[in-house]
């Protein structure tokens, strides 16, 4: 049995109250808890206060925008989202929701929590005893990075399935904080620093995800060990327009990486040149790099046929 550390809990009913509670030092939002709560059991962080979004009903609403886009509450579960008829016009996103974890977890996990999923690493997402045995690492309780001992930072991998597709779609997030409301494109949300992967200000809550009107279709590909449960070893989203092909690759560093190309082969070569997978996952980085070329090409080719 793995106990939780001690913390306080609050379930505010208004956004204003939630923001003010979230300004308490050491406070953290609790959405579905499917990322946060296992991390607490592993003592990856020990928040003083969990601020639940359970009673913030506006976070579970969605609406069609006047321009034909969609506004989706951050507290909608991945199951609710993939079941929305309007999501059929965003096939890559629908597919990405359905590849997260397992159907049971998709019924609890929220889209907001997915966008803000902590970065992951073979040496970090482990029980306390495991991490103690290697003296921890830069990201938690240690002073070296086992992935890149000569490097200066942390390279823990961005691993959220929905994000590569959201990036290609040009989605934005609405953040409400003590200083007001701001809109940030998904492509500008990630810092590239594994220690602090999300560019959120203290006290900010992700309230809505804004999708532009449906455009050229996107596809989502996920390479994983088992067809269920597992996080991706590589995540690839691709789309095609008059100006050529685009792909966003993730699970290869703290932020996703975008590449462009004229043809599927060209796109695959661009990804192969731009992306260097590291030892953040169990399979050899050299193998992941080779398979990356194949995954990107196949993603682009499936658009060509469609």
């Amino acid at each position, binding site marked *: 049995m793995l106990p939780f*550390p001690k913390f306080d*809990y609050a379930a505010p009913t208004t956004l204003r109250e939630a923001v003010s*509670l979230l300004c308490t030092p050491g406070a953290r939002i609790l959405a579905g808890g499917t990322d946060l709560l296992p991390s607490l059991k592993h003592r990856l962080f020990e928040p003083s206060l969990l601020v*639940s979004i359970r009673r913030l009903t506006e976070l579970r609403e969605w609406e069609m925008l006047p321009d034909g886009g969609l506004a989706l509450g951050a507290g909608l579960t991945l199951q609710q989202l993939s079941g929305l008829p309007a999501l059929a016009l965003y096939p890559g996103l629908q597919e990405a929701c359905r590849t997260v974890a397992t*159907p*049971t*977890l998709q*019924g*609890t996990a929220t889209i907001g929590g997915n966008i803000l999923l902590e970065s992951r690493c073979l040496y970090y997402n482990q029980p306390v005893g495991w991490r103690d045995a290697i003296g921890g690492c830069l990201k938690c309780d240690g002073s070296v990075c086992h992935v890149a001992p000569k490097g200066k930072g942390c390279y823990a991998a961005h691993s959220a399935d929905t994000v590569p597709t959201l990036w290609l779609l040009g989605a934005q997030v609405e953040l409400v904080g003590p200083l007001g409301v701001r809109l940030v494109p998904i492509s500008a949300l990630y810092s590239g620093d594994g220690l602090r992967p999300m560019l959120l200000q203290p006290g900010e809550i992700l309230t809505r995800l804004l999708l532009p009107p449906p455009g050229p279709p996107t596809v989502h590909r996920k390479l994983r060990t088992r067809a269920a*449960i597992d996080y991706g070893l590589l995540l690839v989203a691709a789309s095609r327009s008059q100006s050529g092909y685009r792909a966003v690759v993730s699970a290869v560093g703290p932020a996703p990486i975008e590449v462009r190309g004229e043809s599927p082969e060209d796109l695959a070569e661009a990804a192969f040149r731009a992306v260097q997978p590291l030892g953040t996952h169990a399979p050899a980085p050299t193998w992941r790099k080779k398979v990356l070329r194949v995954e990107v090409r196949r993603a682009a080719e499936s658009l060509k046929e469609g």
Partner: protein
Amino acid sequence: MSSESILSLRVNGQPFRRLVPAERSLLDFLREDLGLTGSKHGCDVGDCGACTVLVEGQPRLACITLAVEMEGASITTIEGIGGPEGPHPVQKHFDQQVASQCGYCTPGIVLVLVALLRDDPQPSESRIREVLGSNICRCTGYTKILAAARAAVGAA
């Protein structure tokens, strides 16, 4: 903001009111506070599905759910599905197909199938497999679990 709260909820149709610390998992609340030990501690971190219960009819992992989050909720555990005297059709088919060995995964798998067959009485083979992807069994190799699930289609 508090370190404990009074929790009111229904479990298997029966109302309960208890004082729980913020850091109590729903699984420990059910097992330790209510004595309902049918939901199992497997991995305890959301990987295996042994702790699955139904919250408002939807499968949820009790090991990574805070009990305080269940305020006002209606929960069904395996004890509320059926027992030796009145087994649920899914349980009956598990028995007939010998789909349990150690039985540790069984309550979670039965609950996931009960919810599936309620929402989709004629699920395709691929849907059954997709849904069973939520649960890990270390004993059976899944063949007999799938056989029990197929047999339960139409009977649940």
